[in-house]
């Protein structure tokens, strides 16, 4: 109908003082919905992800960099770390890090955002920040708990500047409570919430935990969710609010069934490996597949939850005699004899190539899926390709790279990870011109002075 597509969060501006994934991932999601997210950074303590591999290797100099803050894009990581207070680079080879703008992971986590440099430790920097607050809807930060107070930028101050401001604080363990100073990263939040203990083979195996920071992503989700709830409330009531978030509590919220099992039945959680703890199912696990070289070490997950699926599996296996044995005659019997069942199913799967097997099992109606690697998802998975899960977005210094798009598809609204900037992550200070001049009305002379004085 030729109607202009609207972004759901059009007109919402977010001052983003977060970092890493648990913090910076939340505003990323809000950018995908159309919020104008302004990521605030300072060179003396940059986001670790700017130094973290992998790096875009192909050097690409972009003409317009000189006009948008070439002084900082030329800033090499080594200089940054020598300057003061930056990350302990002991474990990294600083020589390999060519620039703070080349980190691939940072590029993904900050796609769709604007980026400015601002020294919050300088009084003038904080005055500039207040100007930004006056034209923002949301301030979100993940500093240690007292930082904003210490800077004279607590909720009361922010509210005095912008009465309907939404202020979200996300120290690891929350602001209220005796653990206010404690540190949290994804693995810590996973460990304390119970999620680590719930992952892995039964004792005496130790917990396997998580091979990525699930609670960083979850921290990001709940950051976005909380801000969205508050934005909705503000739309309906006109009021802003203060939100005290932690990285651990969303993890606790995902352990509710185990908490209840203990409250009601006095039972302690026991790990079950890949076996289904509460839905009767067998076989249910990861089974080894055939493969040589790079294809060695492949596994397929099979989850049989009904008689019908079991019969289908038996047919795909070619009705071997053992399936007719009494001990596999019912789901209850199969669960009772899972060790033997797993051994027999493994003996069958390990002669077979994983993706062919997946196709045959699925065609027969058996829930099954290869334990996919990143390479599988990026290069082979036809469904993800069909869904356009990776979005090519341009970055001013490293060029165009695939960025993980958000998984929700809107029929009418314009929603994608490019956000209002329609690009990947900002270079350090890339949008100083736009923010300081256009939004805050600074002159070139004022900008130059702030730059010389180490404020921006």
């Amino acid at each position, binding site marked *: 109908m030729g109607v202009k597509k609207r972004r759901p969060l059009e007109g919402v501006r977010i001052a983003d003082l977060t970092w890493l994934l648990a913090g910076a991932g939340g505003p990323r999601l809000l950018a995908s919905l159309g919020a104008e997210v302004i990521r605030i950074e300072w060179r003396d303590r940059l986001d670790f992800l700017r130094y973290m*591999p992998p790096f875009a290797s192909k050097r690409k100099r972009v003409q317009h960099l000189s006009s948008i803050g070439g002084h900082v894009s030329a800033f090499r990581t080594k200089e940054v770390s020598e300057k003061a207070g930056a990350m302990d680079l002991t474990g990294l080879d600083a020589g390999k890090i060519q620039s703070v703008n080349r980190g691939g992971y940072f590029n993904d986590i900050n796609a769709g955002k604007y980026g400015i440099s601002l020294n919050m430790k300088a009084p003038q920097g904080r005055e500039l920040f207040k100007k930004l607050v006056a034209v923002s809807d949301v301030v979100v930060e993940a500093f240690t708990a007292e930082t904003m107070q210490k800077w004279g930028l607590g909720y009361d101050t922010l509210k005095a500047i912008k009465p309907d401001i939404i202020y979200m604080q996300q120290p690891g363990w929350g602001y*209220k409570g005796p653990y206010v100073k404690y540190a949290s990263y994804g693995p*810590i939040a996973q460990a304390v919430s*119970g999620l680590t203990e719930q992952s892995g083979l039964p004792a005496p195996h*130790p917990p396997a935990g998580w091979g990525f920071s699930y609670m960083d992503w979850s921290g990001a989700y709940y950051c976005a969710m909380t801000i969205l709830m508050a934005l909705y409330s503000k739309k309906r009531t006109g009021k802003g*609010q203060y*939100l005290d978030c932690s990285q651990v509590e969303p993890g606790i919220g995902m352990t*509710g069934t185990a908490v209840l099992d203990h409250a009601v039945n006095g039972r302690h959680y026991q790990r079950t490996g890949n076996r289904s703890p509460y839905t009767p199912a067998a076989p249910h696990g990861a089974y080894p597949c055939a493969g040589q070289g790079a294809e060695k070490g492949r596994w397929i997950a099979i989850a049989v939850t009904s008689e019908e699926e079991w019969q289908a599996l038996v047919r795909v296996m070619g009705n071997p005699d053992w399936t007719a044995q009494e001990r596999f005659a019912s789901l209850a019997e199969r669960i009772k004899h899972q060790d033997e069942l797993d051994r027999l199913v493994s003996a069958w799967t390990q002669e077979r190539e994983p993706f062919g097997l997946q196709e045959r099992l699925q065609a027969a109606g058996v829930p099954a899926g290869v334990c996919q690697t990143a390479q599988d998802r990026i290069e082979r998975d036809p*469904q993800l390709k069909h869904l356009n899960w990776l979005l090519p977005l341009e970055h001013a210094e490293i060029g165009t790279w695939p960025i993980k798009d958000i998984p929700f598809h809107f029929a009418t609204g314009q*929603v994608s990870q490019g956000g209002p900037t329609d690009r990947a992550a900002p270079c350090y200070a890339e949008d100083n011109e736009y923010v300081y001049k256009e939004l805050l009305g600074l002159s070139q002379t004022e900008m130059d002075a702030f730059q010389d004085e180490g404020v921006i």
Partner: protein
Amino acid sequence: MDGFLFDVKVLELADEKGEFCGKLLAGAGADVLKIEPPGGQATREIGPFYHDQVHPERSLFFWHYNFGKRGITLDIESPPGTALLKQLIAEADVLIDTQPLGTLEKLGLDWNALQALNPRLTYVVLSPFGSSGPWRDYKATDLVHLALGGQMMCCGYSPTDDGSYDTPPIAPQMWHAYHIAGNQTFIATVGALIGREMTEVGEMIELPIHQAVSVCTEIDVPHWIYGQTPCYRQTGRHAQPAVGPEVQFPTKDGRYAIILPNPFPGGYETLVGFLESKGKAGDLNAEHYKEPKNRRGRVFAEHFADIQAACVADFDMEDIWHEAQELGIPWSPIRLPEENPDDIQWQTRATFSQVEHPELGESYTYTGAPMLPNQCAWRQGPRAPLIGEHNRTVFCEQLGLSAEELADLQNKGIV
């Protein structure tokens, strides 16, 4: 205090794929009405159960994931059921649908029809793989999603010395594919509700769980994109291109603790000082190790891990981590979920709440708000609905059926 979503009405036609999202919307203050088939939703068969009694009103899974919702029963595929569903849709803000693809379409309720019925409706479709594409009809479970999504290849135990694995990839329990999808569905849904304030019209949102799960890993994807480098799973820590230092250590009481390297300047020295204060720094104070360059590489990493392990082994899991955290050392116990309600931090923040089950004459500890709101309330009850608990309220008081008409529908098995 009002909830955040105090005036939002949600209809839920969902099983385990969408119940978590509905629970979060209810927690945030929305009025979530769960529509179950007569006899109850199949998720009532998922354990564990109250006193191990396998019974549709005794599923603790159902209790947890349907907390704070109201519930009715309705055979939406019967003509009178479809008509009642339409009346409900006309008054709703959000409809969450995880039914097999095409279920509503067959009832004449495709997106166009839904829009005609209620232009302000946000219609949210959660399906395993999406409504089109080569895997559209694949069957999935939590386990299968975590396999295809990449979580399993990141999680598990370290390889043996020759680089091969003698343990399978691990799918962390429990129900995380649906947590991941539910969280992202919440984001999309509330985003659409905010957009509606501007456009005055609703939205259709599709969320393929496979895609939602596939984007929820960390560095494996960038490592492949930027360097074609695979990542390898290892016990209790990030999958990485190479096996890294251990961070998870057994405690004296047979449990485990985790110590992460503090990435800030001085973080290493603080940890060594702390180990020293326990008489457990080994030879780390030797001049040789004061040079950062002598602390690189695998040999030192293993040595350092051994020293930390020896310290942790001397203490019970809950013993010294507070002292370490006070110094800024990221150290924590690896707890069981049920150990958290006793922690003073969560008691201070009211992270858990007591929920009454009047029909049982009991109250139980539930997980509560995922953060601490100050000007809005997170929902504190009621417990999950009994089967058809709100049939009378909804069908008679809201939709205007007489008691006789409701009884008639009940007799026909429609509610």
